[in-house]
């Protein structure tokens, strides 16, 4: 693929950013990304904003961050969903040949609404919504199905939380850096069995921006590019009752496609770092298996062996992941930005040794759809 990520910008992820509106967050992230790429706003020829009207409490929310994203008199379009999907649209535009540089932003401020009510509205209003489920209770059912099918234990889930919160201690953008034990996780409040409070990601505020450029433009600038080698996404059925919740079939398909585009035949050997959508502890394990980075049902055991630790063979969420800060919508774009920093060798205290990495985003309840990005240091 003849395109690269040439700039990334992240705000710190916080519980409650009282000092900034979400447009202010976009302003900060976009300026950081421009500075990172060594560009000015006039070097950007089109913009994709990623947002959700429900989370923003505003109709046509994408328009409200336009000014802060420098869209005035530019071609701007929008995606509603996770930032990885916004970035996939941006990539398609860049590859079309009509654009040289596409700026992507994704933001949300979870602090400004009530997550349970917003995610309840994701359920079908005719058959399901009035039963009162939300993202946590739905994912608890998936966690139960996954644990039942694979024999994965609550202790193994808890280890994901310990690892990621510890990793976050070296991430200046993370909301919840913590040293915790398996016992701390298991004795934290049981919200929806089998998910304890510390199995769940927090509600967060944040914005991330990245700049995608075509190969010709990359030649002309000083910025250190990270090359996009393969991107694919795939969706499963809408109703949870129509899916096998214990498996991430849509992710398997998306990963297969992305690897095939990238020319990867053995992901466990050829991928050196992964930033995944760990909204809940069990998801990191399930998504690892869906991505072919662990055999089905084996991720928990590999985790216990330290394979996914920052100094392990395949570091997973060295940033601390979503468990350490989860700005919905922006979350997947943060994953991409983190892999970019890793591959450039600029991840500071959380740096791992990596040539090729995978970033992953999710849209919908219990991972209805997945977007997979394979990124490489070299073209």
């Amino acid at each position: 693929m003849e395109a690269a990520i040439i700039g990334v910008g992240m705000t710190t992820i916080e519980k409650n950013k009282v000092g900034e509106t979400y447009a202010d967050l976009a302003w900060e992230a976009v300026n950081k990304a421009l500075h990172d790429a060594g560009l000015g706003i006039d070097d950007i020829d089109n913009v994709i904003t990623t947002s959700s009207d429900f989370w923003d409490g505003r109709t046509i929310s994408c328009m409200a961050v336009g000014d802060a994203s420098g869209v005035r008199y530019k071609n701007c379009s929008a995606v509603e969903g996770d930032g990885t999907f916004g970035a996939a649209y941006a990539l398609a535009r860049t590859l079309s040949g009509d654009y040289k540089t596409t700026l992507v932003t994704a933001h949300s401020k979870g602090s400004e609404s009530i997550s349970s009510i917003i995610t309840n509205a994701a359920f079908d209003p005719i058959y399901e919504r009035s039963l009162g489920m939300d993202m946590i209770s739905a994912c608890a059912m998936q966690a139960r199905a996954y644990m039942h099918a694979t024999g994965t234990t609550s202790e193994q889930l808890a280890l994901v939380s310990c690892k990621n919160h510890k990793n976050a201690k070296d991430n200046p953008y993370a909301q919840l850096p913590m040293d915790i034990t398996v016992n701390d996780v298991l004795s934290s409040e049981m919200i929806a069995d089998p998910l304890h409070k510390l199995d769940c990601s927090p509600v967060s505020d944040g914005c991330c921006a990245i700049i995608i450029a075509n190969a010709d433009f990359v030649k002309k600038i000083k910025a250190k590019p990270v090359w996009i080698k393969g991107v694919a996404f795939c969706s499963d059925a809408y109703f949870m009752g129509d899916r096998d919740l214990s498996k991430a079939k849509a992710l398997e398909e998306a990963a297969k496609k992305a690897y095939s585009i990238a020319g990867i035949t053995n992901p466990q050997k050829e991928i050196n770092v992964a930033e995944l959508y760990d909204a809940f502890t069990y998801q990191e394990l399930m998504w690892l298996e869906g991505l072919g980075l662990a055999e089905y049902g084996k991720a928990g055991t590999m985790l216990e062996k330290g394979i996914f630790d920052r100094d392990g063979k395949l570091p997973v969420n060295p940033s601390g992941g979503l468990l350490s800060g989860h700005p919905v919508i922006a979350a997947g774009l943060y994953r991409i930005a983190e892999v970019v920093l890793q591959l450039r060798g600029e991840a500071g205290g959380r740096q791992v040794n990596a040539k090729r990495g995978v970033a992953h985003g999710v849209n919908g309840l219990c991972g209805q759809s997945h977007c997979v990005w394979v990124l490489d240091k070299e073209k």
Partner: protein
Amino acid sequence: MEDIFNGIEPQVYKSQISVPYQWWAGETASKFFITLRDEKKILGTECPQCGKVFCPPKKTCPFCYVDTKNWKEVGPKGKVITYTVVYRKLAALKKNVPVAYGLIQLAGSDNAMLHYIEGIEPEKISIGMEVEAVFSDEKNASIHAISHFRPVK
């Protein structure tokens, strides 16, 4: 930068966005709900191509992408595909905790229905457990024409 919030409450604009909506249930769900309420029978729709039966019923088969034309009675017994017990009073919940939810695959159906599991201590619920629908006297034709599912004695 100067901390302008020092010693003061940050200003917020508070609102309750209240936008009335009404979703027409449509022909397929309406027939399902009316039969539930009036006949205490659970119906699914059958795909003429692959023969799969869906409950809750849907108008199209997601696998074959054709109209599901035939109605088939399913249940009222079924098995628990997966479940959770919610212990925190999450904002979307209208009931008192603990609340147990299950995805229930009804006998004769190929997919699963989301509903409450009651009549059992929450910690005794298990995957694969046999349950049956308990109908309510709900006057409206809705998913609440089934009150909940309970273990088969």
